[in-house]
């Protein structure tokens, strides 16, 4: 009972602090929203476009480019804006359509368009996508110019003839198909990947931030006063652990529930997802108490806590999916509990697994939690009873 009382008072103290409300409840959701908006559904390279012309060719080129999967076409108001955007990396490349392209084509001259890219990006590759689209549009133009030169017919007449033939013939086709099992299937929602990543990041961050609260508990003498009551050291240590664990759980359940309700995030099998949260929160609680017991200064502990929780999250795949890491970095990643939790979520969400499928990951997380909690309990005993 006392264990629960200590735990509950920990959670209450966390909820009373206004800045905690922000970091625990508002900020994670804002980040999931931001990341979903920015990266959700994959990032296609963007090609900027400035069309100084609104003629037939310009219109066709625009339509053709916009119909391509795999790139985003972003219109710009003028040439300078387009150039700046390319230089600053807002878009990866740009195409510039000069005025009077239809007239140039009709006079039999070469129609010049501009392509701008940076030497360090993948401009050369995007150029081939843009080039193919332009080539497609310009085919009847070239044929009409040729026929005009050969027969002396008017350009308009030759163009209509060529366009008519092009419409009816299939020509040399290019068929695209894909093989393999998608790493991130299309059924994966815009926020699904980011939500699991941010969940583990923030649950761990909050748990480590709890170290400062633990130090304050000692600084304010609460721990000593508890000891002077008929409360055993074991009860205090377990109670603190329950408090840290409960805080992490409150946040985790909140993030899961809210993202499910608002963003329709798929968390997979609910029992499996809950168990990941339970074990991962215990890992966080252990780490938080260990940190809190190892430092005497709450500012230092929170500095180290922020560094550890962001650093481990980055290493563990909370910022970039582990699947995109190199082989060595994948091994390094699996030294963090984050990677195991994210693997388990991937199994549930992307491959439709159940609790049975994630038993190995749950086992590793439980082992982490056990070791950390034992270490933490030992250090905390020392810290509380230190004269």
């Amino acid at each position, binding site marked *: 009972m006392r264990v629960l009382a200590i735990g509950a008072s920990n959670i209450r103290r966390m909820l009373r602090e206004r800045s905690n409300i922000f970091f625990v409840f508002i*900020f994670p959701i804002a980040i999931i929203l931001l990341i979903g908006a920015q990266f959700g559904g994959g990032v296609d390279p963007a090609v900027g476009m400035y069309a100084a012309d609104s003629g037939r060719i310009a219109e066709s080129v625009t339509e053709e480019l916009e119909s391509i999967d795999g790139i985003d076409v972003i219109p710009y108001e003028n040439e300078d804006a387009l150039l700046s955007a390319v230089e600053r990396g807002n878009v990866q490349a740009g*195409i510039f359509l000069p005025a009077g392209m239809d007239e140039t084509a009709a006079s039999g001259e070469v129609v010049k368009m501009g392509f701008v890219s940076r030497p360090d*990006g993948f401009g050369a*590759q995007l150029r081939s996508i843009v080039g193919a689209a332009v*080539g497609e549009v310009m085919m009847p133009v070239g044929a009409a110019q040729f026929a005009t030169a050969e027969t002396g017919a008017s350009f308009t007449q030759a163009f209509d003839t060529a366009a008519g033939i092009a419409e009816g013939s299939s020509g040399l*086709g*290019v068929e*695209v198909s894909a093989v393999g099992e998608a790493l991130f299937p299309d059924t994966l929602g815009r926020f699904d990947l980011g939500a699991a990543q941010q969940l583990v990041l923030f649950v761990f961050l909050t748990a480590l931030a709890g170290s400062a609260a633990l130090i304050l508990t000692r600084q304010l003498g609460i721990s000593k006063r508890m000891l002077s009551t008929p409360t055993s050291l074991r009860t205090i240590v377990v109670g603190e652990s329950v408090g840290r664990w409960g805080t992490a759980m409150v946040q985790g359940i909140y993030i899961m529930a809210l993202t499910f309700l608002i963003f329709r995030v798929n968390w997979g099998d609910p029992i499996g997802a809950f168990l990941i949260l339970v074990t991962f929160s215990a890992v966080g609680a252990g780490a938080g108490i260990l940190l809190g017991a190892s430092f005497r200064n709450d500012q230092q502990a929170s500095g180290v806590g922020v560094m550890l929780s962001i650093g481990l999250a980055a290493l563990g795949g909370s910022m970039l999916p582990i699947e995109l*890491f190199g082989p060595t970095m994948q091994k390094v990643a699996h030294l963090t509990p984050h990677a195991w939790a994210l693997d388990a979520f991937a199994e549930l969400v992307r491959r439709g697994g159940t609790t049975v499928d994630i038993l190995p990951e749950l086992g590793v997380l439980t082992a982490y939690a056990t070791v950390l909690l034992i270490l933490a309990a030992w250090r905390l005993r020392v810290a509380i009873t230190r004269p």
Partner: protein
Amino acid sequence: MPASTLIARKDLKLRLRDRSAFIFGVVAPLVLAFIFNLVFGGASDPATGLGLEYGMVDLDQSEISQAFTGVLEGAEADGILTLQTYDEEAMGAIAVEDGEIDAFYLIDVGFGRDIQTGGSPTIQVIGDIDAPTSTQIGASIAEQYASGVDSAQLAIAATATLTSTPITPEFIGSLSLDPRSAAFSYQLEDFSAATRQLDVTTYFAAGMAIFFLFFTVQFGVLGLLEEERDGTLVRLMAAPIGRLSVVGGKAILAFALGVISMSTLVVATSLPFLMGADWGAPIGVGGLIIAGVLSAVGIMGLVASAARTPEGAGNLGAIIAVTLGMLGGVFFPLGQGDDLLSKLTFLTPHAWFMRGLGELADGGSWTAAVPSMGALLLFAGVTGSVAWVLLRRRLDR
């Protein structure tokens, strides 16, 4: 020595002795920049581009199919892609699944014949489902080749139709121009743009530096509220020291802490064996750091003036610093094209600091960073003035 400097010097000694400022100002940004560089460096370094790797399965072995292979080999020679040849489709598919190549071209038997007899020849592009962009690029190379072939055929067909002549080898022979010239009705002229964007390593070094700067500066600014709480502020006010000196002393301290932290980080991240970040022209970097630190002092001063207790200011400051950092794109660049996010981001000093450094990238002159310095100074001026007005009123009480 003026009172403000004296106050700043005393506080600086105190802060340098406390390891907290050192953790926030140097250790945390350095460690995180290092980790981010490790994690993201290999994955998204723009210098390595997409690393297009394709395969070719040519079952036709006709003159026309070999001409297409020739085009790809030309692109390989230009360093745009790499090309492997496979004897059969299954081997290409295995290579894709194993991640050796992004996609492969499959040219079936009868391709060359179909082109000449007006059949419906196709080049198949079979790509890795997880490499849509690479597959798309591979397809567009084939499409470009196809449109060259098609242009010539269309030119012949259009001429034949206009002159009501059947298409025969004799007719093609009678044409005065080469039909292949029809593919050259347009030209995509290349303009190269300068790079005004940071490389991955420098990006994270700078991002973490400016992110933690706000926490470091806060240590200086909070000193004022701590003195108020501890009652030493009243004693300071009783001494023949102006209010400006008291507030100024704390501001100087915050500024000094910020500059020390930032300079340490610039030097440490530039070390070739550590990260080898390339910050750019020293005068430009120096100017951006000074302007950036001033903006942080202003904003954190405003936070201190609005909060009642040091703890409250610490918490509010953390919220402001984290929100501005996130929105300022210190963890990942925000927005694409000219969408709302890419405009919102410039409401933060962080984004201006990063943009200023971006202007210096690739050997830009320090003058290119002047607009960013101006924006940062504007942040500093506005927030600093409001903070001063509020703090002065508070000290009067």
